[in-house]
């Protein structure tokens, strides 16, 4: 009886030599980084007691402080909603320009992508620090920061969605005499609307989280109170700020997850 020959693998493939080498390199890099940065793991163990002290003080939240932080808490959420919305309004046309599958030249989407990449390299805290210098302290600065941050994030998420659409219906529309705007409205938007909303909500979630720390550099919202109470060693008040932040983020997360599930 004839038996077909089993294909052979080379030595390198058989023992996953390449994968092993990569893992070895990563371990070496990790250890080397610890050494260069002067990270001392033993410090983590020896100072763990300090952690207990902090927790002890925080476990007695001063609830009367809550009345002071209600307004900035609301402001934080407002900044996030405004910033995300403004960012999204600018991100939609940018995403259409950056999508590779739509009918326009390489120069257009290449340039758009490059610009969007630059926007995304700016961390929001750094952005806020710069914008505070320009627009001054306050929630306006926070809103602008979040708008710019959302613009970078949403335009990327959106153009990736755009690149996954089925272009068949668009072709059918084109063949029946539709203009490019009509094609986008009838063949593209129905395919992406659900995912766009879902990504909008996700960005809102991220922004509520990050807007709580923007106050640290003076960009409005709850972060300012976080900084003040820590600086004054008022950990019982810090605890209230942290718990309020946690509760808000949790509520927004649950709400947005619920809505996103509904959109599927």
């Amino acid at each position: 009886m004839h038996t077909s020959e089993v294909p052979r693998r080379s030595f390198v493939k058989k023992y996953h030599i390449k994968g092993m080498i990569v893992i070895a390199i990563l371990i070496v890099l990790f250890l080397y980084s610890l050494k260069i940065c002067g990270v001392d793991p033993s410090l983590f163990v020896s100072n763990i007691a300090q952690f207990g002290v902090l927790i002890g003080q925080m476990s007695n939240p001063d609830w009367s402080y809550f009345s002071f932080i209600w307004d900035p808490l609301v402001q934080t959420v407002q900044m996030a909603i405004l910033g995300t919305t403004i960012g999204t309004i600018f991100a939609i046309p940018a995403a259409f320009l950056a999508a590779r599958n739509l009918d326009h030249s390489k120069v257009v989407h290449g340039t758009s992508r490059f610009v969007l990449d630059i926007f995304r390299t700016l961390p929001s805290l750094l952005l806020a620090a710069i914008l505070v210098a320009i627009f001054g302290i306050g929630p306006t600065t926070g809103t602008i920061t979040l708008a710019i941050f959302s613009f970078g994030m949403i335009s990327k998420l959106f153009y990736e969605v755009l690149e996954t659409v089925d272009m068949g219906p668009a072709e059918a529309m084109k063949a029946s005499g539709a203009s490019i705007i009509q094609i986008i409205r009838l063949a593209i938007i129905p395919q992406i609307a659900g995912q766009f909303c879902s990504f909008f909500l996700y960005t809102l979630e991220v922004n509520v989280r990050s807007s709580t720390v923007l106050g640290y550099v003076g960009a409005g919202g709850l972060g300012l109170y976080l900084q003040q109470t820590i600086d004054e060693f008022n950990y019982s008040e810090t605890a209230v700020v942290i718990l309020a932040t946690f509760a808000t983020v949790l509520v927004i997360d649950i709400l947005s997850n619920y809505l996103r599930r509904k959109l599927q």
Partner: protein
Amino acid sequence: MSDSDILQVNHVTKVYPNGIKGLDDISFNVKRGEFIAVVGLSGAGKSTLFRSINRMQDITNGEIFINGTDISKLKGKELRHFRRKIGMIFQSFNLVNRLTVQKNVLSGRVGYYSTWKTILGLYSKGDKEKAVRSLDHVNMLKKLYDRADSLSGGQMQRVAIARTMMQEPDLVLADEPVASLDPKTSEGVMKDLRNLNVKDHDTVLVNLHSIDLALEFADRIIGIRDGQLVFDKAAAQSTPDDLKEIYEGGNS
């Protein structure tokens, strides 16, 4: 060209940027009201021919006249208005899955609407009634409010035919309309296309892989091999052997 010719293809050649010849000096005329099957191997140039006829792509050489108009000179709005009169049916149906059957059918009419009306999603009462009639025509009216992705392949193709009817086309190009359907469903879809031809007096060109379907439904059969026209006869005078020759010839 005579008045009864709706389409005239004169020495048409299409060379793709990578140097491949899609069409090689093809000429033929189509009379108003004809039902023509275009047969040939995958890659022979059938789709290229169709996409040249409605200017979804430009040809390299030659001329195409539709209703006496040289289509290579059309641009912008003129081109869009010209395309309204040419229906196209696709192998992959190309419906918007997330929309209802009704919205998909109405979208066939969009070439007749202004941009702002489209943005608001407004359609006239007359067109809504027209959509109902078109769907009734292909026996799909009961699915009016169903989402397109809940339909079977054959049902999707029927809806696509109803969408094309909304254009009130003079000429319908069906690009492998039954290639992804089972034999029984294919038969049904071919009958719907034939009805377009008989009841609405549309001229229909259909790309087919099935010799049997070509012989059963078409008035005339055109064969294409390697971008060249190798066969052009009335279906009544064509034999299965003739058609096999279109597929197998040129290999000897």
